[in-house]
């Protein structure tokens, strides 16, 4: 049987993943037409490439339907409860770096820390009659972070894209999102709280703790990690 390797199916994340494996003698390639999600692995016998949305890779690892997967730390931590019991971190891949941060309008000169955000939230709620809205798609990570830091009187509103625009569009007062250079935040007149770093994320190779392996697959798994020069 085969060892299944889940890799993001699109864009730079896919290309960089292919490069990272390629540099280690494992060639990943898409096959068929440009639109067909099929792939091939050369350099190790018995490994099957599964092209997936990066957001679905944590779930597939946790379900044990793939043995290895490449996706961001942010997505694993957000989507998997007790993540380290479900997946094992094999190697950070050195790309796809992004920070999950909390940002507020730059004009909020009175807000620089979580402590300020908490106080501003209390005043906002008293004035507007609803809780200060933070737009994000990372509900669990943001909620746990704010709870740990004793911030109250906020609410999370879901934003699956163009999150930095929500403040200007009056659908949120602040955002919690992934940023790598901060350019999009600056362009949207937002600033990062000085203690608002929730998580540093990068593309990472994970191994499922749930995927069953027989003797043949175990040998394949060891051959793959040996070739990649990573422990598993």
């Amino acid at each position, binding site marked *: 049987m085969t060892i299944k390797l889940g890799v993001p199916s699109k864009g730079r994340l896919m290309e960089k993943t292919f490069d990272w494996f390629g540099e280690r003698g494992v060639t990943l390639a898409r096959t068929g037409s440009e639109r067909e999600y099929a792939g091939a692995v050369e350099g190790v016998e018995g490994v099957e490439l599964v092209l997936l949305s990066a957001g679905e890779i944590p779930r597939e690892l946790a379900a044990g339907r793939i043995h290895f997967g490449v996706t961001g730390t942010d997505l694993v931590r957000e989507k998997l409860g007790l993540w380290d019991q479900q997946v094992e971190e094999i190697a950070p891949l050195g790309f796809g770096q992004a920070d999950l941060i909390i940002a507020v309008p730059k004009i909020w000169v009175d807000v620089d820390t979580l402590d300020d955000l908490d106080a501003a939230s209390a005043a906002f709620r008293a004035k507007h009659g609803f809780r200060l809205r933070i737009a994000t798609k990372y*509900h669990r990570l943001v*909620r746990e972070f704010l709870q740990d830091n004793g911030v109250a009187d906020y609410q999370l509103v879901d934003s699956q894209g163009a999150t930095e625009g929500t403040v200007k569009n009056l659908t949120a007062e602040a955002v919690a999102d992934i940023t790598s250079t901060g350019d999009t935040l600056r362009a949207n007149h937002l600033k990062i709280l000085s203690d608002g770093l929730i998580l540093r994320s990068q593309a990472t190779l994970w191994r499922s703790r749930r995927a069953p392996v027989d003797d043949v697959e175990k040998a394949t798994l060891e051959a793959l990690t040996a070739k990649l020069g990573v422990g598993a």
Partner: protein
Amino acid sequence: MPTRGKIRARAAELRAMFEAEGAQLVETNVLQPAEVLLDLYGEDIRGRAYVTSDTLRGEQMLRPDFTVPVVQMHMEHGAEPARYTYSGQVFRRQEDDASKDNEYTQVGYEVFDRENPAAADAEVFALIQSVVAPLGLRAATGDIGVLMAAVQGLETTERRKRALMRHIWRPRRFRALIDRYAGRAPVPASRAALLAHEDPLGIDVPMIGMRSRREIAARIEALREDAATPPLSAGQVEMLEALLSVRETLPFALEHLRDIAVDMPAITEAVFRIKDRMVALAERGVDVDALEFETSYGRTQMEYYDGFVFGFYAEGRPDLPPVATGGRYDALTRVLGQGREIPAVGGVIRPGVMLKLEGAL
């Protein structure tokens, strides 16, 4: 008998006992409108309750407890005084510990009575204690009202008191605020820079979002006022710390609190309430000399209790949740009563945990 049947049978027994005490049997829906709970607890509730939704009614929560719907029901059409009992499943997310139940049975007893809060506290505690007595549990008690009174009595600005009151149930944040107000924590550099600036809002940055320039200016003003406020005196902070560290059997704790009240008269009323409760408990046959009291008890749970709090624990079984918990929640009736309020106290028992301790599950 299967587990579920045993728990249900025990729940029925407990409910019948509470009914015999004069409680009216009530039921609530499993699905509760999320709005009410979110408004009460904020985003934190999502971390501990299951939220579901449909496209017509919007977000609904699987009831995380009975207290809120029972209070709502009472505030809408309850007679006074009232005693209620109920039993059924509650649902709690357990994302950090798969060994904890995410669905379990609670049996509750709630008293809405204006006449004599101390007697009502004692009634609920003694009743629940009598139910769990055969299990030989450790009882813990406390009173959130003492700390609240102490905060109200601090010699500082209303704004600072309000901030502390908001964070009574978040001990870490509370501690950080005290440190800052006492001048023990350094002022963040960004704060100092802001305060040193003559016209901090006079920068060339577009105004975006719903929080207005006026609101920002108001907060800067508040920060200036706060910076000009003298620090909390070392004496007051010490007293607050002494108060928070009281942990003794009830009569000694009471004596200790009385001593503190000499220098902190704001807590006098709250201390009298503890004394009245102690007398009422003794009248109900509770061995108050052996009863533990801890000022900080009940502060870490995200709850609505604002007075007497209690819990019953199986010693040597840290793997098990408390068998019973309860407390007074006057403020909750105010929030849900839309202008009306009534003193209320209640408690819940987990029949499943009782059966486990008896070795029956």
